[in-house]
C-alpha cells in the first residue's frame, strides 16, 4: 500500500493507476471464482469417474448387484448386499452407543464437571477427535479384539444362549474379530465427535435461560431435558449426523477387525464386511475389469449413502430452523 502511494503520482497518471488496479482486481476476482468453479468440477469429476468405472457392473448384473450376497472373484459373480448390510449395521450399532454416551459426556462437561476440569477434559476430547482412524484400528486388532474374544464374547454367548431370538444374534464361536468388534471400535472413534460438538452447542444456551429454570426450582436434569436440549436440538442433530457420516465412510478402524467375510450372518459375533473395508482390502489385488469395476461400484454406493445422510441432515436442520423462526 505505501509503495503504491509513493510511486503512483510520479510515474503514472491517476487514470493509468486506476486502470492498473482494475486489471489486477479483475484478475484476482477471476482467480477466486475459477477456484470456486474448480471445486464444482472436482465433485463432478468424482461422480463422473465413479459412475464411469461402475458401468460394466451394472451392465452385467443390473440391479441384481444390490440384492445378491455372492462375492466370488473366481467365477466373477459379484453382489453388494453383504457390504451394504455391514456398513449400515456397524454404523447403526456404533451410533446407538456413541450418541447416548457422547451426550452424557457433553452434559457432564457443561453442567456437572468442576470448572477447573472443564477445559482440560474438553480439550482432550477435541484432540482425540483428530487422531487418525488407523490408530483405533491397530488398537482394535492387537488389544481390543483379543480381550473381547477371551472375556466378553464367551460371556455374551453364554448369557444370551437360552433366550430365543437373541441367541441367534450372539451365536457362534468367539472369533474376537467380527461385526460387533468393528461396531464397538467405530463407537469409540465417533464418540469424541459427538461429544465435542454437543458440548459446543450446549455451551451456546444463554445462561439466563438456564438460570431462570434453576430459579423456579428445576433440578439439573429438568434444566437439561426442558431447556438445554430443546434449545440446542438443531446443533445436536448436526453433530450426530457428522458422527454418522464418519462412521459410514470409516475405513481403517473397521478394516482391521471386521474379518472381511462376504456374507450376512444373523450373529453379530461373526465376521462380516463393510463397503470401505472391502475396497481397502481387495482393490489393489483385484484382477479383471469386472472385479475392479465392482469395487468402484461399491465406492459409488458408499458415496451415495453419505450424500443421502448429508441431504437428510440438511433438510431436517432447515425444517427445524423454519419452525423455530416462527
Amino acid at each position: 500500500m505505501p509503495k503504491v502511494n509513493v510511486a503512483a503520482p510520479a510515474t503514472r497518471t491517476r487514470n493509468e493507476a486506476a486502470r492498473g488496479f482494475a486489471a489486477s482486481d479483475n484478475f484476482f476476482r477471476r482467480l477466486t471464482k475459477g477456484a470456486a468453479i474448480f471445486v464444482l468440477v472436482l465433485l463432478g469429476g468424482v461422480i463422473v469417474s465413479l459412475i464411469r468405472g461402475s458401468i460394466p457392473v451394472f451392465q452385467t448384473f443390473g440391479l441384481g448387484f444390490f440384492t445378491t450376497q455372492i462375492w466370488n472373484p473366481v467365477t466373477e459373480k459379484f453382489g453388494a448386499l453383504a457390504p451394504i448390510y455391514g456398513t449400515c449395521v456397524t454404523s447403526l450399532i456404533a451410533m446407538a452407543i456413541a450418541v447416548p454416551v457422547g451426550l452424557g459426556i457433553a452434559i457432564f462437561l457443561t453442567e456437572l464437571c468442576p470448572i477447573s476440569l472443564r477445559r482440560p477434559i474438553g480439550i482432550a476430547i477435541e484432540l482425540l477427535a483428530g487422531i487418525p482412524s488407523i490408530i483405533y484400528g491397530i488398537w482394535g486388532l492387537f488389544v481390543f479384539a483379543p480381550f473381547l474374544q477371551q472375556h466378553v464374547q464367551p460371556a455374551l454367548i453364554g448369557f444370551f444362549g437360552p433366550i430365543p431370538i437373541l441367541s441367534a444374534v450372539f451365536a457362534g464361536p468367539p472369533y474376537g474379530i467380527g461385526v460387533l468388534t468393528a461396531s464397538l471400535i467405530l463407537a469409540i472413534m465417533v464418540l469424541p465427535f459427538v461429544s465435542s460438538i454437543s458440548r459446543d452447542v450446549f455451551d451456546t444456551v444463554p445462561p439466563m435461560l438456564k438460570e431462570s429454570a434453576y430459579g423456579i426450582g428445576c433440578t439439573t436434569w429438568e434444566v437439561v431435558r426442558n431447556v438445554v436440549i430443546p434449545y440446542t436440538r438443531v446443533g445436536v442433530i448436526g453433530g450426530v449426523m457428522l458422527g454418522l457420516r464418519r462412521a459410514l465412510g470409516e475405513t481403517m478402524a473397521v478394516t482391521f477387525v471386521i474379518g472381511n467375510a462376504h456374507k450376512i450372518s444373523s450373529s453379530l459375533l461373526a465376521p462380516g464386511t463393510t463397503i470401505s473395508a472391502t475396497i481397502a482390502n481387495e482393490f489393489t489385488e483385484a484382477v479383471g475389469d469386472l472385479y475392479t469395476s465392482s469395487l468402484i461400484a461399491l465406492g459409488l454406493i458408499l458415496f451415495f449413502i453419505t450424500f443421502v445422510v448429508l441431504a437428510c441432515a440438511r433438510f431436517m436442520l432447515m425444517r427445524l430452523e423454519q419452525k423455530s423462526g416462527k
Partner: protein
Amino acid sequence: MSLYSARRRRNARWMGLSVAAAGFGLFWLLLILAVLFWRGVSGLSPAVFTQMTPPPGNAGGLLNAIVGSLIMTVLGVAIGAPLGMLAGTYLAEYGRHEKLALVVRFINDILLSAPSIVVGLFVYEVIVAPMGHFSGIAGAFALAVLVVPVVLRTTEDMLNLVPNTLREAGAALGMPRSLVIRRIGYRAARAGLVTGVLLAVARVSGETAPLLFTALNNQFWSVNLNAPMSSLPAVIFQFALSPYKEWQQLAWTGALLITLAVLAMSIVARALTARTADK
C-alpha cells in the same frame, strides 16, 4: 414432598448416568492413548529414523515411510491449500449473495463428508489408471482433494468473521477490492487461515485409505514422484496385519509417530486460535 423427592431421585439417576457415560467414554479414549504410548515407545530408537523398512523377520526403521509421508503431505497441502483458500475467498468476499456461492458451499459440504476411500478411487480412475502405475504424485493429489474442502470451509468462516467496517475503511481510502481482501481481510484473519491449513495437514497426515491404491507402498528408499511411494499409514496397515513381531512393533512405533505429529499440529492450531480470541 414425595413429588419433590421423586424429582430429586430422578435427577440423581440421570446425572449419575451422565457421569458414568463420561467416565466410560474417557476411559476408553485414554486407554487407547496409554496402550499406544506404551507399545510405541518401546520400539523407538535411532534406527527408526535412519533405516529403511525391513524385509520380514529383520530389524529396521521407517525412514522411507516417514520421508514419503512428508513429501506427499507437503505436496498435497501445497496443491490443495491455495485452491481452497482462493475458493473460500470467493465465497466470503465476492460471492456472498450469488447463486454460485450457494452451490459451491453445498458441494463443498459433500466433498468434506465424502469418505476418503472414495477419493482414493477417484484419483485411481483419473490418474493411476491412465498412467498405468501407482505413483507418489497420485497420492499427493488424493491428499490435495481432501485438503481443499477443509481449507475452503475455514477460510470462508474466518473471512466472515472479519468486521465489515474494516473493509469499508479500506474501500474509503480508495483501495481496490482485491487489495482490501489481501491486505486487510487476509491479515485480519491470518491466525484463522493458518489454523485451517494446520487442521488440514493434521487430517491428511493420518489418512490411509486414499493412499492404498494411489501411492501404494514401497519397501525401498524412493523419492521419485513417478513411482510408488511409501507412507507411514500404508506401512502401518501392511505391518500390523503381518505375522512378524518386528513388523508389528514398527507398526506401533509408526502409529505413535503419526499420533504425536497430529497432536502437535492440533495443539499449535488451538494455541493460534486461542491467541486471536484473547485479543
